[in-house]
């Protein structure tokens, strides 16, 4: 177990287990952590990434067709999100931003539930306790503190009752979020209490139009050392490397080793959201460079090199993607607008006389139009 006071020195080079052509690099440190990933498991990760990319593409299309108000695409970040999502246990708990559709998918959230908030029919799409994942956070960085507090709760519960599972809380946020006070305060709290929380930062190189160089002078993964938090910088387009570093951080946290930080170096291939026009601030050459590092192609090449990728797998995954996309589309279009009086729902947990009066007044007012 690494000493939290002497965190791993990060390097400029991210951890990488698959090169850009899918060839496997050996690693004494990380190989044992993914020794169980056989052909079948790798094919599963491949399917997950293809499906979530398809769901994401469908989200973009539905927005363009006016079915969704907005969509923040994850294109390019599939390996980071699936690698994280599949490394978690069901009793772990994720606090994410708005872009982690892939993580939510791994938590068992139904694809159609991913769309609810973006269609504008609800402010949250699923039951956080059922999924082990909070409603996505729009306020940049706020969720890092929530994850830390949740981890402090796990710690307390384990002291009260040693039979409590050694769950871990995970905070997902972006490179831009690293500048917010909340994220930095979260790291202070996490280190102080040695809370079982993993900070998972997807450095997709941009915060809307701002390049990561505007947020930091050093690799983001170098910052946690100052808080006394061990960190790793990983190739976020390499699903094996992501799996390995996440598992390492999770095991350390479960074992009482305190928080961990992971910078997954990746790239936002799409716009920030459907409301954004990246041609105003991004060099197309950059996009080309990162296209060559496509996470799905890389795993596919690796599977091919193992003789584990054939037309059968390709076709079954494609068929599954078609099916998920069709269901998603149908489910989205069928989603009804909520009832008008829903606006008053759940504002308080307990009765509130004045709000009840407002609701009743508004109902009578609406009724007045009918009669």
């Amino acid at each position, binding site marked *: 177990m690494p000493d939290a006071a002497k965190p791993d020195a990060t390097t400029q080079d991210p951890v990488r287990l698959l090169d850009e052509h899918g060839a496997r690099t050996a690693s004494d440190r990380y190989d044992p952590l993914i020794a169980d990933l056989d052909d079948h498991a790798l094919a599963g990760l491949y399917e997950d990434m293809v499906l979530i990319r398809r769901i994401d593409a469908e989200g973009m299309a539905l927005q363009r067709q006016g079915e969704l108000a907005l969509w923040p695409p994850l294109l390019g970040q599939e390996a980071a999100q699936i690698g994280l999502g599949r490394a978690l246990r069901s009793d772990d708990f994720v606090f994410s931003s708005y872009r982690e559709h892939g993580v939510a998918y791994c938590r068992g959230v139904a694809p159609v539930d991913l769309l609810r908030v973006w269609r504008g029919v609800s402010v949250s799409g699923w039951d956080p306790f059922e999924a082990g994942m909070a409603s996505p956070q729009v306020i940049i960085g706020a969720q890092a503190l929530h994850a830390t507090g949740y981890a402090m709760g796990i710690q307390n519960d384990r002291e009260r009752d040693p039979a409590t599972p050694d769950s871990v809380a995970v905070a997902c946020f972006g490179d831009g979020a690293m500048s917010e006070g909340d994220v930095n305060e979260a790291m202070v709290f996490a280190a102080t209490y040695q809370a079982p929380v993993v900070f998972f930062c997807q450095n997709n190189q941009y915060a809307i139009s701002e390049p990561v160089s505007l947020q930091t002078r050093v690799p983001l993964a170098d910052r946690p050392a100052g808080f006394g938090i061990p960190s790793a910088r990983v190739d976020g387009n390499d699903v094996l490397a992501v799996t390995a570093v996440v598992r390492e951080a999770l095991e350390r946290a479960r074992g009482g080793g305190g928080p961990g930080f992971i910078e997954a170096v990746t790239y936002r291939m799409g716009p920030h959201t459907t409301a954004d026009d990246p041609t105003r601030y991004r060099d197309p050459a950059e996009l080309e460079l990162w296209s060559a590092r496509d996470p799905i192609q890389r795993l596919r090449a690796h599977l091919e090199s193992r003789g584990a990728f054939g037309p059968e797998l390709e076709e079954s995954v494609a068929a599954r993607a078609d099916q998920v996309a069709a269901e998603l589309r149908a489910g989205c279009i069928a989603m009804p607008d909520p009832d008008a009086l829903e606006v008053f729902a759940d*504002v308080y947990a307990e009765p509130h006389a004045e709000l009840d009066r407002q609701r009743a007044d508004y109902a009578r007012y609406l009724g007045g139009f009918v009669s």
Partner: protein
Amino acid sequence: MTTMTMGKALNAGLRRAMTDDDRVVLMGEDIGTLGGVYRITDGLQAEFGERRVMDTPLAEAGILGTAIGLAYRGYRPVCEIQFDGFVYPAFDQIVSQVAKMHARTHGLVRMPITVRIPVGGGIGAAEHHSESPEAYFAHTAGLRVVSVSNPQDACTMLRQAIASDDPVIFFEPKRRYHVKAEVDDAVALTEAPALGSARIARPGEHVTLITWGGLVGVALDAALAAEDEGTSIEVVDLRSLSPVDYDTVTASVRRTGRVVIAQEGPREASIASEVVAVLTERCFAFLEAAPVRVTGHDIPYPPARLEKHHLPDLDRILYGVDRVLGRVRETGVEVSP
């Protein structure tokens, strides 16, 4: 005079302010290369350079906190907060520091900081992108609060806000960014109506309808519709929410004897509540009916497809007008929605 959108008028106002005073600096997220998510700062970084138009790290407390230091050093920072719902990380710096600095330094330190905030709903946006936080700021002594509704006011009042030695929270209603009108971006600031003044947007006799920002257009439409039924509505565009121009407002209410005030934000402890209280104190003898507030409900801003049930619309405003005119049959509705 040039015809331009309110967005372009704000851009022209910024350019003019930066040209007039080289101590004016802009700070915010995505305001440089991108020109801001609403393009209000479009082209300004190319024109004035990266020192005067700063893309900041993603940290609102950082933006306002460093703006304070720049103000100490004699600069006039104009901070852009990307959306209304993202001002709260900076709230501490605004309320505890910016607002109080002049008083706590016995007037030795001025905070000529302008905080530009796209505000309000009606645009089908995601969570935290449609809020109306005016009341939080109007409640804070030391801040001036402005909310514009048309291109000329946007341009002139932004220039005035920047020129003011007091901090100004400057609200720009998103749903009005695309409204077009003739604008003179070189108006002499001393000749323009003062920053704290209200504007009679449409004269009328029977009812004073007070509003500001995003609802000014809706109020004018309501006045037009009411005219068909013989009701003459005077629409007052408050423009300045702190201080409120009570000279203009009370003069109108004393003439009409009836007042409706409409706002997007929730009702409780709001601008509408305050204005109604003051008018009741100062115009009680002139009032023919209890003042009526037409407001958003006391709820978190709802998802896009429900916002029409939150935001006052033409019908709700006219219902409020009917109430203040005593035309609403007893429906059991205690207050106007």
